[in-house]
């Protein structure tokens, strides 16, 4: 059995707005370590296209730091899947375009052997959440209150309880809260 992990930057008030992120070396190193534990990164169309526009070209960015490029190398080489019925092809290195139903596909994928599956985009993650497919939440809480944007948990209805695994604090003041999905009784 593989675990499906959601790893995402959020604000203290629960918004998953990537512009809240303090993208310093330590943050990139943290995500690099997360990729080390991952063997497939999963995407919906929107997040995929955003990522595909930047990461394959990261080495052309004069402002990219050492940690950004280390992360880029890992991200570019790791196996990736994009779930979309509309895009024509996926050109980012080592990416498979999957046209079948993402929920069923990922539920089956979780039954196979291997390292973790990682999801970072909010829309597809929301669908996984409402299908109880996410096993762990790695929430990187940035020291900011933004008051608007997409709520990370907007797809969940009713009260959901998670189990805290541990917390880690980065020098920037980002606190990583790791939770496990409580098993439904």
């Amino acid at each position, binding site marked *: 059995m593989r675990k499906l992990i959601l790893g995402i930057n959020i604000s*203290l008030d629960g918004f998953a707005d990537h512009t809240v992120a303090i993208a310093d070396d330590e943050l990139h190193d943290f995500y690099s370590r997360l990729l080390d534990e991952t063997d497939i990164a999963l995407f919906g169309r929107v997040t995929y296209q955003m990522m595909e526009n930047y990461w394959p070209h990261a080495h052309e960015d004069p402002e990219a730091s050492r940690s950004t490029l280390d992360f880029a190398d890992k991200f570019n080489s790791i196996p990736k899947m994009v779930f979309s019925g509309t895009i024509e092809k996926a050109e980012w290195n080592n990416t498979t375009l999957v046209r079948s139903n993402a929920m069923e596909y990922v539920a089956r994928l979780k039954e196979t052997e291997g390292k973790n599956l990682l999801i970072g985009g909010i829309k597809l993650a929301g669908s996984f959440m409402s299908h109880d497919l996410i096993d762990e939440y790695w929430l990187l809480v940035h020291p*900011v209150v933004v008051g608007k944007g997409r709520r990370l948990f907007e797809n969940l209805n009713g009260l959901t309880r*998670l189990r805290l695994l541990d917390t880690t604090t980065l020098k*920037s003041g980002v606190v990583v809260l790791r939770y496990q999905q409580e098993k439904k009784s």
Partner: protein
Amino acid sequence: MMRILYLFNLVTLDGFFEGLNHDITWHNVDDEFHDFAVDQLDKTDTILFGRITYQMMARYWPTPTAIKNDPIVALKMNSMSKIVFSQTLQKADWNNTRLVKENAVEEILKLKRQPGKDIAIFGSARLATTFIKSGLIDEFRIMVNPIVIGSGVPLFGLIKEKIKLKFLKTSAFKSGNVLLSYQLDKIGHQ
């Protein structure tokens, strides 16, 4: 050292400090939380409230139910010096409560200059907004509960600008709650 004004709120993982209709039944509290709350109150000598939070608390803590279920905290809450800021309340009957109708900011500046233990503000979203914007909150203590409720009243939702905080410390509780402490860095987009 001058005493501090701290804000303390429980918040859900999805960023709400209340559910709909002021629902706080999701509060994830146990013996360890109770010990934390007692310790925090021991270091506090004045609590500030807006009208709505005041009325909720004043309806609960003096009751036999509260005194039976939570004798230590009830005793502290009932005996502690309290200030309710409201222009509409006629009087404040909860023991040791002073009603202040205007100039909340000056009142706090005066209070902070006096010697004493820390000053707390719980809930009281509108009043807290005024104090945050005036730079009067010295410490933000946000206890993140491991719970998603889906809808409710957002933390600091009355402030439309982005609030940047400076991280102070964190502590995790066995219940899965995590207390995050911050100072205000700045409000706005600069």
